[in-house]
C-alpha cells in the first residue's frame, strides 16, 4: 500500500493551486447596455488592476474540488453525531426545499409590505409556535445564533432595569455554563460572578441565595443543564432572583429535552433563547447559519428589538415605532431562511409530534447511559435528560484522555461526543444522541465505546494514536497556533 501514491481525491490541493490564467467557471449574459470605462466613471485611482492569487478555474474543477473536499467530512447524513449540547439531529430535506422557493428566497427585505404578507405570515406563525412551546409571552426572531440571542436577552434585562432606574452590575453564571454565557455577559457590559455547582452538578440554591442581592441583574441558567440534568429547583431559583429584583435568563440550547413536556415560562424564567439550529433541526452547515430567537415574559416585551410584526385590520405590518426597544441587534429580519426551515420542522411534527420527539431524545440518551455506565465513570448520579456526561477518570489511569477516546471513536465510524465541556467534569465525555438515531445505530455506538474501554486497558497506545483509518491522522493543533498560517500564499516562483 505504501507504494501507491495517494488517491487524487485524497490529494486534492487548494483551488489556488489549480488556477491558470484565463480559466473561469462562470459566464454572465452579454451586457445589454453600453459598457463604461471604470477609470472614467470612478477615477483610475479607485480602480483595482488585479486580484493577486485569486482563483481561475473551470466549472468542472470547482465541482470536483468541493465534491472531493466533502468526502473528507463527517456529517449527520453519514451517521451518529453525538456532540453533547449541539443536538445534531436529522436535518429534514424538505426544509431545504421550502427555503429555496422563489417568492421566499428572492424576497428583498425592503420590498413593499403588500408583497410580503406571506413572509410576515411565516414569521408570525413561527413566533406564535415558539411562544407556545416555551410558555412565554412574546418572541423576537432577529438574533442570528444562540450567543446573539443571549446578548439580546441580557440587553432586554438591562433595558428593563434601566427603565426602572435600577441599574445593576452583575450577572451570575454557574460554572457549568457554556462559554458564550460569560462572554455575552461581558459584552453586555456586566461583571460575571461564577457560582459553583453543588455535588449533584446542579445550582446550589443556598449559595445562590448568599450572592443574590440588588447588584444582580440576572442569573443565566441552562436547563436541563450542561450535564444533562434537570434543575429540579428551578422555581426556587426563580424566586430567589425575583425577590431581589433580578431576572432569570434561561439558555434554551437544551430545549430538545423539554419541548412538549415542560415549559420554561412555567419555571419562572423571564427570558430565554432558543437555538433553531439545535432543537428545530435547521442544519449546522459546518458552523452556521443558525438563529437564536429570544422569548420573554410580558414585562420584557416592550424592550424587544425593532421591528415587530403588527397585525392591522388589513394586513401584517412591521412596526418600528417602539420607543422602549433596545434597538436592533441585526439588520433586516434575522436569518429568515433559517426561520423558514424551523417552521417547516414544527409543521412536520405538530404539537404531539414535538412531544414524541422529546421522548425519543431522552430515551436514546438514557439507553446510551445504561450501555456505558459499567465502562465509564459517571460523575453525577442524577437522572439524565437528553444527554449523558461521563468522565475519563477510569481511562486516565491508563494515560488515555477523553480526547483520545474521541479520536478512537472516529476509527469506529462515529463522530466523537463533545470533549472538554462542561468544565465542571474533568475529562468530560458529553454524549447527546438526539431522537433521530435508531436503536441499531445506538447499539453500534455502545459496542464501539465498550470496545474502546477494553482497548484502553489492553493497548492504550493504540487509542492514543487514533485515528488510524482516516485520510488525515491526528492533527497538530499546537503547531497551528504557534506560528499561524491562516491563508494561502503563492510559493516563490509560482
Amino acid at each position, binding site marked *: 500500500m505504501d507504494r501507491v501514491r495517494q488517491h487524487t481525491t485524497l490529494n486534492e490541493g487548494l483551488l489556488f493551486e489549480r488556477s491558470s490564467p484565463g480559466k*473561469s467557471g462562470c459566464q454572465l449574459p452579454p451586457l445589454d447596455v453600453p459598457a463604461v470605462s471604470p477609470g472614467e466613471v470612478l477615477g483610475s485611482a479607485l480602480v483595482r488592476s488585479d486580484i493577486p492569487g485569486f482563483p481561475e478555474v473551470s466549472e468542472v474543477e470547482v465541482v470536483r474540488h468541493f465534491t472531493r473536499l466533502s468526502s*473528507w467530512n463527517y456529517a449527520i447524513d453519514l451517521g451518529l453525531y453525538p456532540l453533547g449540547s449541539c443536538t445534531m439531529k436529522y436535518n429534514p430535506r424538505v426544509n431545504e426545499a421550502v427555503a429555496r422557493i422563489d417568492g421566499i428566497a428572492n424576497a428583498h427585505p425592503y420590498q413593499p409590505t403588500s408583497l410580503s404578507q406571506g413572509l410576515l405570515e411565516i414569521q408570525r406563525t413561527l413566533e406564535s409556535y415558539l411562544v407556545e412551546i416555551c410558555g412565554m409571552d412574546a418572541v423576537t426572531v432577529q438574533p442570528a*445564533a444562540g450567543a446573539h440571542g443571549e446578548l439580546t436577552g441580557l440587553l432586554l434585562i*438591562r433595558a428593563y432595569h434601566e427603565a426602572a432606574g435600577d441599574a445593576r452590575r452583575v450577572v451570575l453564571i454557574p460554572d457549568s455554563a457554556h462559554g458564550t454565557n460569560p462572554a455575552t455577559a461581558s459584552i453586555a457590559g456586566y461583571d460575571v460572578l461564577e457560582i459553583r455547582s453543588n455535588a449533584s452538578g446542579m445550582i446550589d440554591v443556598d449559595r445562590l441565595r448568599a450572592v443574590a442581592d440588588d447588584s444582580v441583574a440576572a442569573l443565566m441558567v441552562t436547563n436541563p443543564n450542561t450535564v444533562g440534568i434537570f434543575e429540579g429547583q428551578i422555581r426556587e431559583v426563580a424566586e430567589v432572583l425575583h425577590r431581589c429584583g433580578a431576572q432569570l435568563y434561561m439558555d434554551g440550547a437544551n430545549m430538545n429535552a423539554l419541548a412538549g413536556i415542560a415549559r420554561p415560562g412555567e419555571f419562572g424564567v423571564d427570558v430565554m433563547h432558543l437555538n433553531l439550529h439545535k432543537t428545530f433541526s435547521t442544519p449546522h452547515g459546518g458552523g452556521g447559519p443558525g438563529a437564536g430567537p429570544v422569548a420573554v415574559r410580558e414585562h420584557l416585551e416592550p424592550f424587544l428589538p425593532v421591528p415587530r410584526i403588527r397585525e392591522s385590520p388589513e394586513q401584517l405590518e412591521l412596526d418600528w415605532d417602539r420607543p422602549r426597544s433596545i434597538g436592533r441587534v441585526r439588520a433586516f429580519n434575522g436569518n429568515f431562511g433559517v426561520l423558514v426551515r424551523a417552521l417547516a420542522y414544527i409543521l412536520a411534527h405538530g404539537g404531539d409530534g414535538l412531544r414524541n420527539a422529546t421522548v425519543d431524545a431522552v430515551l436514546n440518551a438514557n439507553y446510551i447511559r445504561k450501555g456505558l455506565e459499567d465502562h465509564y465513570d459517571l460523575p453525577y448520579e442524577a437522572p439524565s435528560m437528553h444527554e449523558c456526561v461521563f468522565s475519563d477518570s477510569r481511562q486516565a489511569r491508563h494515560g488515555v484522555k477523553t480526547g483520545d477516546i474521541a479520536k478512537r471513536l*472516529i476509527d469506529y465510524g462515529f463522530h466523537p461526543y463533545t470533549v472538554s465541556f462542561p468544565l465542571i467534569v474533568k475529562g468530560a465525555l458529553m454524549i447527546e444522541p438526539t431522537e433521530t438515531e435508531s436503536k441499531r445505530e445506538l447499539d453500534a455506538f455502545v459496542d464501539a465505546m465498550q470496545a474502546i474501554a477494553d482497548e484502553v486497558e489492553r493497548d492504550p497506545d493504540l487509542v492514543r494514536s487514533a485515528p488510524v483509518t482516516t485520510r488525515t491522522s491526528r*492533527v497538530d493543533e499546537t503547531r497551528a497556533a504557534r506560528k499561524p498560517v491562516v491563508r494561502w500564499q503563492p510559493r516563490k516562483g509560482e
Partner: protein
Amino acid sequence: MRYLPKSPVEREEMLAALGMESAEELFAAIPDELRRTAGLDIPRGMSEFEIRSYFEQRGSEAAGGYASFLGAGAYHHYRPVVIDTIATRGEFLTAYTPYQAEISQGVLTSIFEFQTMIAQLTGMEVANASMYDGSTAVPEAGMMAARITRRGRLLVAESLHPEYRQVLDTYFRHQGLTAETVAFDRETGRVDTEALASRLTGDVAGVIVQSPNFFGIVEQVEELASLAHGAGALLVSTFSEAASLGILEPAASADIVAGELQSFAHPPSYGGPYVGVLATKMRNIRQMPGRIVGETVDSRGRRAYCLTLATREQHIRRARATSNICTNQALVALMATVYMSLLGKDGLRELAEQNLAKAHFLAAELRESGAIPVFSGPFFNEFAVRPSGRVATEVNRAALEGGIIGGLELGRFFPELEGALLVCATETVKRDDMAAYAACFRGALDG
C-alpha cells in the same frame, strides 16, 4: 413519524432495557407541577407535501416575478446552480463546526480558502471564518479597534448603512464605547473630511466608513485612512455590496475590513442568512473575534487544517473572550467560496463592470426622465435620485402596478432626503425594465 427511526416495538425494548414501564418515567426528574399533561396548541403534524404547499402558498403571496431596483444592503445577483449543488451535499450541510479536524478537513479546507480569498479581495493579510452578517461585523470591528487602541470613541460615517448604525448603537451602548456620527458632504455624498478631521482627537479608537457607502458612492478610503492614522486611530472600512470588490482598489491601508458578502452567496431571502466578513492585518490577529482556520500537519507530516487561536474565543477565554460569537455563518461562507471560485478573477471583474455599466445606464435614463441626482460622487451600482415630475411614492406606486419594485425611499432613514430614491441596478436588471421604470418617473411630466 417519518423523522423518528424507531418502531413501537423497539421503543418498548429500549424502555425495558432501562427498567421502565412507560416513557413518562424518563421525565421523573421534572417536578410534577412543571410537567405538562396538556398537549401543545399546535396543529397535527403535516406531511411533506402539505408543508411544501404551505410555503409555496406563502411564497406566491410575495414578490415572485417582479423586476427590482432595490439594493441598500441586500442585492439581487445571478447565482450559479453549482453553489447549491455543493452546499446541499450532506457532508457540508449536516456537519457541525469542525472541532474534530481529522474528519472535518472538507469544511476546514474550504474555510481556509474562504479566508484566503477574502484577504485577497480586501487587501488585508488575514480574515476570519465569518461573522453573522455585515451589520454585526461592523460593531465587532469597532470593539476590536477599541481593544487594539485602548480607546473608547468611534467616529462613524453617517453614510454607513443606517441599520448597521442602529446595530452599532445597540452593541456599543453598554460597553463604555461611544459612536459618533460624521456627516456626509451634501454635495458629493462622500464623508465630509473636514468634519471628520475636526473630530479626530487623540481619544478616537477608530473611524468607520463604508465604501461604496449607503448611497452607492465610492469613498476615498486611503485619504480617510491617513486622516485616521494621523490621529492614532484605526480605519475600519466596510462594504455591503461585495460585487464592488471586483473593481474597486482595496483599502490596503485600512486596519480592519468588515463587510457583508451576501452578494456572493445567498439570495436576499427577506434579510438572511447572509455572511459577514472580518479581515485585518496580521498584527491584529489576536484581537480578532470569530473562528480562524490555520494550516498545520497531521502526525504523518501531511498538510492539514484545524481551528486555531482559540484562546481568543468564548469557549476558552469565557468572560474575557474577544467576542461571544460561536456559531457563525459557515454554510453561507461556503456558498460564497464556491461563488468566488466559479467567477474567479475575470468573472468578478466582469461582474463589477456589468453592475457599473447597468447602474450608469439607468442613471442616464432616469436623468432623461427628469430625475435629479442627489450626489455628485462616483457611484458603483446604486445611486440616489430625486424625481422631478412626480413624488417618489407615486413613481414607485406606478412601477409596482407594472410589476416593478422601485428603489428605496430614502426618507425612511434620512428625513432630509425625503422624496429621494436609492436606486440599484445589478447585472440581473434588464434594459427593458430600466426603460419601464424610467417611464414611471416621466409619468407626471407627460400627463
